[in-house]
């Protein structure tokens, strides 16, 4: 555990270095860490706090405020499913139900086999081709039951 956290801290050092002299560096640093690890590990917060002359509580306060900053490692795939009004109007809820059943997870959960994390998202800006989703950064429009089954097969593979 100690070993792992030392590695993490050295992995974030260049990200901190890249941003610490810029205006408003904390979000770019956290975004960089999110890209690197897929989540924001608690172990790296003290290093950020020290570099930016903030308290750990301040850094944690920011991490906990934003939906994107997962505090636990996600599954091998991340599926974000839009739950906002335009997707509700086009049968998004039925697709969401189906996907939760197929994947065996509820929103905010990671499958027991570590295959996938399912997260809600409130609007991907694809409201004229709803319902929509994002699988590992790839956008999906006009999501229907057939496509939902494909997604389930894809993340299980």
């Amino acid at each position, binding site marked *: 555990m100690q070993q792992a956290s030392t590695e993490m801290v050295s992995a974030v050092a260049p990200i901190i270095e890249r941003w610490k002299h810029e*205006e*408003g*560096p*904390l*979000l*770019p640093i*956290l*975004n960089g860490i*999110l890209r690197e690890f897929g989540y924001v590990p608690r172990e790296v917060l003290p290093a950020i706090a020290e570099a*930016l002359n903030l308290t750990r509580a301040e850094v944690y*306060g*920011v991490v906990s*405020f*934003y*939906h*994107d*900053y997962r505090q636990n490692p996600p599954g091998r795939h991340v599926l974000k499913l839009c739950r*906002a*009004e*335009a*997707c*509700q*109007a*086009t049968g998004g809820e039925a697709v969401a139900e189906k996907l939760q059943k197929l994947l065996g997870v509820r929103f905010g959960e990671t499958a027991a086999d570590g295959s996938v994390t399912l997260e809600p*998202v*409130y*609007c*991907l*800006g*694809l*409201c*004229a*081709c*709803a319902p*929509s989703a*994002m699988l590992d*950064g790839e*956008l*999906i*429009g*006009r999501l229907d039951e057939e496509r939902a089954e494909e997604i389930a097969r894809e993340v299980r593979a």
Partner: protein
Amino acid sequence: MTVTIYIPRDSGALALGADRVARAIGEEAQARGRQVRIVRNGSRGLYWLEPMVEVETEKGRLAYGPVKPSDVPSLFDGDFLSGGAHPLFLGRPEEIPFLKRQTRLTFARCGITDPVSLSDYEAHEGLKGLRNALSMTPQEIIGEVTESGLRGRGGAGFPTGIKWKTVQDQPPGQKYIVCNADEGDSGTFSDRMIMEGDPFVLIEGMVIAGIAVGATRGYIYLRSEYPVTHRILEEAIAAARQAGVLGGSVLGSQYAFDIEVRVGAGAYVCGEETALLDSLQGKRGQVRAKPPLPAIEGLFGRPTVVNNVISLATVPVILDRGGAFYRDFGMGRSRGTIPIQLAGNVKRGGLFEAAFGLTLGELVEDIGGGTASGRPVRAVQVGGPLGAYFPPALFDTPFDYEAFAEKDGLIGHAGIVVFDDTVDMLKQARFAMEFCAVESCGKCTPCRVGSTRGVEVLDRLKNNIEPERQIEIVTDLCNTMKFGSLCALGGFTPYPVLSALRHFPEDFRPHPVREAAE
């Protein structure tokens, strides 16, 4: 002979398979020994036809859509490279009624040009506004913007010229232009479309704003849900820097201006300007009371213009054609054009830019073609999750800031989400409260606590526990949120709740009564 083919790289087109179509066309052309040049343009905004492929022919640009990868061999068989016949043939895109009826000022180039080619941008009237601005005094620039009657397109509708004047009037020193690209409202995608389809127009607008108020630094605060937009913006900014549109000397002038994109982290409330500024500074995105106005004490305590993407992207055409030209479109105090977004359960969903004044009914039924499901329209929500639900009985309301306010609604960012008759309005009201609870920044009590209590009250109503009393409580609660919240999140959540209650009371009555009525 090399044929030019346009295949959008817009998020919407990509979500419908545009990359796979582009790959298939490239491979098929190679296999058949045909020379093609594929340009990845923005979207024209006709999403029911995406991916829409356009071919440059002797007869002009001709469109085919919606194209699937499996359609590609038959397109080649039908000689689509010369505009040949095919079941997906759409003809000249400008002649498609949905496009033909529009007045595209802000979106004039969107879907036509290569979004990251500055020479293409200039060949289509780009940079003319900025060149004009460089020959004017800052006062004259602000004069044109004020004259145009442009009001903040993010939703608040505050006159852009007055905001700029306030920042200009502050003593010289570091000032900022901040572009609010945190387009979080469901049913809206115009910011995304323009940033992906014509990013230079936003860059040009920000440079003009910088010159007008004396700012040298601009930030685009972009939501993290738009990764494709981010890539395109970065490419466009790099091209603008290379060409000297951004940098130490804007187009060789004495003005300096540069732009940086900052990506958010998934917080709806950061679309509120004071929360956005805190987020840019690396803090929790919490709302604060105004005054001080951001125009006086904004980013890092410095005078800051915070404008929505569409407001800034509309500035170049105003400086190009003049404030009076823009002002002559529209009605009442709503001047110019507005990019309306038709979304949800609608047959022809997409972007429709038009002068203010079309009625809601014309937009939904006539232009949008009614629902995609073919069932009757029961409700439309205008202006995102904080906008009111309108029944067809109010479809004569003209698209105008004041007309919507009179009917207890708002235009917001001009998104219209269409619902058919299967919608349960009690459920929609509950969702409005739930969304507010999820996204509340937590600073003020009416929003933080009110939204959670609102969900509980509506759940009791659904379960038939003293229904009349719950309606009374939720109405009272909405009043408290409306007048007691610090920002529009808590303050406007009552709009969808109360409008649902008012226009669709049958959905809020106890179930046995509802069933008996059917």
